[in-house]
């Protein structure tokens, strides 16, 4: 109990600093930070790979441009990747990649990740629990107002949690909030909410980092969206464009800096780059490393973030040949990770070790880095009776950036071990319509989430995204124990035991943590390293122009 992990208490100096500017690494003044950022930008400019996997969880170094004092005014125009006619503004139901920058502009979360992936307060002032993590108390900032001028408080938080978890029409965020007993939740006063849990829920604060857990006011109607985010709704056409003017009631003084935020869908990456170079937009997101050459003109800034997102190759542990752990281990040993990262992302990003949750303090950095070992892979396959194995890897360009290339590189590398991998690339609709969760050998895509928030979704039976169909009683038991402890050392120990199982026995190959590549016009500042989503984790309030 002495080391309460979620550092969200408002009682110490560090907490206050984070409250004042949740994006700055704790203990760093703005000046220091800007100097650091400038250094990062220079390093990126010469294309040098930033230091690899450190032992600490704060390896995200700021990059991009952040010089001088923030100024008010200007119009931020994002040429957004991945929009389509099913774009929508529902805070709890983002469907396309162009929905995320929009919902993060309109709505606020209780907590978020700073540039070093530390959990910091946004709407929350203090979130505390009892000793066995069965009752949580959420205290939010006072004086928060919505775009429409309503006062925003504890009742709105409860409304949001209930809306997300509505058993009839659960939104994606319901998956990370299951232990909450919302029936018996109590609004203690205007800013304080008491949340009992059906089962211990030590990961409540981590779960609130989930992008599907944004807060909306009571009576929220997505057709006329009201929220507490830095920008407010003015117009929106799915698949085309949205226009959000500045929210003058925003709860952080002086922010946001820009007058307007316009988000325009640009489905094609070449068009995104052209729109930025031609000056029609001043921010573009989610680029592949193929665009870097075109952007090295000196007329724009490029920000390459080492995120904790992960693109696994998934093996169904209940289906032959992957039901044999030796085959799974051989597959993990086949991957030449540095080469894969070079070929898929031009060397940007960071190699993986078959364990997710990279930035979580619970991530076990002491597990030995797995390297390609063809001899070992061959002998494991031989022992399993699967020499000259032939498998089909089903994939889709629609899953995410670099996915199909990853499959192709894997197929190439597998040849050395005598394994034939047929890459079957299908359209996104086919993938999500019939193949996802079914194929024995496939791929998936995740933004960064803390380790124990990802686990119930991916590696526990009943998880909505359990692509490996993982069902290991020991592992599940360890997870339940971890949920029941608020003691940090015990929790770390349990998580490390689970990660050892992921590493040795699991059905996920995590060859790398991909970079997120964004670019901005020279006069756009404040876009820094992000642990998860593009454009400073879509922290629109902190981006400014001169």
């Amino acid at each position, binding site marked *: 109990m002495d080391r309460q992990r979620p550092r969200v208490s408002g009682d110490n100096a560090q907490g206050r600093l984070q409250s004042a500017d949740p994006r700055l690494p704790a203990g760093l003044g703005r000046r220091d930070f800007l100097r650091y950022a400038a250094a990062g930008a220079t390093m990126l400019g010469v294309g040098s790979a930033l230091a690899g996997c450190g032992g600490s969880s704060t390896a995200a170094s700021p990059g991009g441009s952040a010089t001088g004092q923030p100024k008010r005014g200007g119009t931020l125009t994002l040429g957004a990747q991945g929009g389509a*006619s099913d774009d929508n503004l529902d805070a709890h139901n983002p469907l396309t990649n162009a929905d995320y920058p929009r919902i993060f502009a309109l709505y606020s979360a209780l907590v978020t990740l700073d540039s070093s992936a530390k959990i910091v307060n946004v709407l929350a002032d203090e979130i505390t629990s009892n000793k066995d993590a069965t009752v949580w108390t959420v205290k939010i900032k006072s004086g928060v107002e919505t775009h429409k001028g309503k006062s925003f408080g504890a009742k709105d938080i409860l409304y949001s949690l209930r809306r997300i978890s509505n058993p009839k029409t659960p939104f994606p965020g319901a998956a990370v909030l299951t232990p909450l007993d919302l029936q018996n939740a109590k609004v203690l006063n205007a800013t304080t909410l008491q949340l009992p849990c059906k089962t211990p829920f030590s990961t409540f604060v981590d779960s609130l980092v989930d992008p599907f857990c944004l807060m909306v006011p009571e009576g929220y109607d997505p057709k006329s969206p009201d929220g507490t985010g830095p920008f407010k709704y003015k117009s929106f056409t799915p698949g085309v464009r949205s226009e959000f003017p500045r929210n003058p009631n925003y709860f952080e003084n002086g922010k946001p800096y820009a007058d307007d935020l316009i988000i325009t869908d640009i489905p094609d990456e070449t068009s995104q780059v052209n729109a930025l170079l*031609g000056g029609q937009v001043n921010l573009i997101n989610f680029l592949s490393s193929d665009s870097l050459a075109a952007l090295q003109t000196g007329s724009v800034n490029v920000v390459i973030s080492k995120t904790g997102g992960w693109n696994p190759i998934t093996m169904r542990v209940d289906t032959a040949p992957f039901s044999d752990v030796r085959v799974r281990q051989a597959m993990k040993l086949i991957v030449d990770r540095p080469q894969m990262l070079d070929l898929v992302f031009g060397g940007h990003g960071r190699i993986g070790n078959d364990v997710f949750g990279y930035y979580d303090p619970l991530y076990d950095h002491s597990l030995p880095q797995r390297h390609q070992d063809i001899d070992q892979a061959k002998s494991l396959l031989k022992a399993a009776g699967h020499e000259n194995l032939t498998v089909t890897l089903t994939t889709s360009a629609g899953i995410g950036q670099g996915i199909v290339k990853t499959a192709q590189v894997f197929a190439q590398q597998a040849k050395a071990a005598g394994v034939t991998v047929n890459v079957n690339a299908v359209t996104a609709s086919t993938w999500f319509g019939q193949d996802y969760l079914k194929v024995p050998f496939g791929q998936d895509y995740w933004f960064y989430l803390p380790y124990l928030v990802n686990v119930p979704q991916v590696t526990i039976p009943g998880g909505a995204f359990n692509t490996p169909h993982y069902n290991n009683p020991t592992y599940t038991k360890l997870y339940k124990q971890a949920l029941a402890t608020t003691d940090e050392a015990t929790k770390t120990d349990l998580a490390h035991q689970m990660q050892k199982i992921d590493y040795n026995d699991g059905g996920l190959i995590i060859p790398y943590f991909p970079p997120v590549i964004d670019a901005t016009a020279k006069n756009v500042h404040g876009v820094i390293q992000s642990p998860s989503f593009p454009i400073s984790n879509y922290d629109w309030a902190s981006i400014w122009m001169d």
Partner: protein
Amino acid sequence: MAEIALEGASVSSRRWRDDHPILWLTLTRALFGVITLLAVSVIVFAATTVLPGNAAKAILGQTATPARVRALQLELHLDHSVWYRYWAWLTGVLHGDFGISYAARIPAWQVVGPRLANSAVLVLLAGVIGTIIGVGLGALAAVRRGGRGDDVLAVVSLGVTSLPEFVVGIGLVIVFATTFFHVLPAVSLVPPGSSAWQNPSVLVLPVATLVIVIVPYILRMTRAATIEALESDYLESARLKGLSPRRLLLVHALPNAIPPVVQVIGLNLLYLAGGIVVVETLFAFPGIGQGLVNAVDDRDVPVIQLTVLLLAAFYVFVNIVSDVVSLLASPRRRLPRS
């Protein structure tokens, strides 16, 4: 086809047909057009049904948990049978109701309409400008055939023909928008609520790309047809009669070149209607082609149906018009057969 169907027709209708060949052609073609549209709607509906996945799963993507898929399927009435859905759609269309878009949850017409207007502007501008330039240069090349200008045009048009439209488009963007000059917008961002027509600058590069792509075909056909006319016997005698070269070309040669050229222009218009999707994607132009690609991705059947029907109707219309114009331009074929 029309003639086969009419083999057993009565004498009076045959006379009517012979007396009004153009009206007859238009009416029969229109009738077959309607049948074609009906057939197209059945085929498209069947095709979208056999495609893997349905709208609910396609729209929800990775977040398609069983509970959410069921809720959305009920909302979109995907739980009914294929026959029922087709019948509901068809009766709706006959009442002027094209259904609600699955993805955007607004009437399909509101999704397709603005995009249709934008694409129509693009196609018409490219068609008109391309035709004027193509016919003009083609006639010029025919008159100066064998000269240096003719050779240059032949080489350039052959070269351009072999370039796909995205190469032409990217070339124009590099020159006029991003790298050399910054005079034109690199992508055609049209704010919703306004049409491409109100933002003429965003039209320049997409229209120029399409014009460059279609001009060579029209040019070469015009040149060939005009040369054929210029070298015919009656033009020889007209020339011997002492008519001016200008009058020879404009009054006697070009009108005879119209039927084949009109067919090529018609073909190019059809190409434009279906093929602008590449150009629309390159310039992020909010047109019907891009909308169709999105709709197929989302299995958004009402939007797919409406878009395809509009495109098919356009095909039918352009075919009828180019046949009628060809017929009007060749009096010989209009004469009653004995």
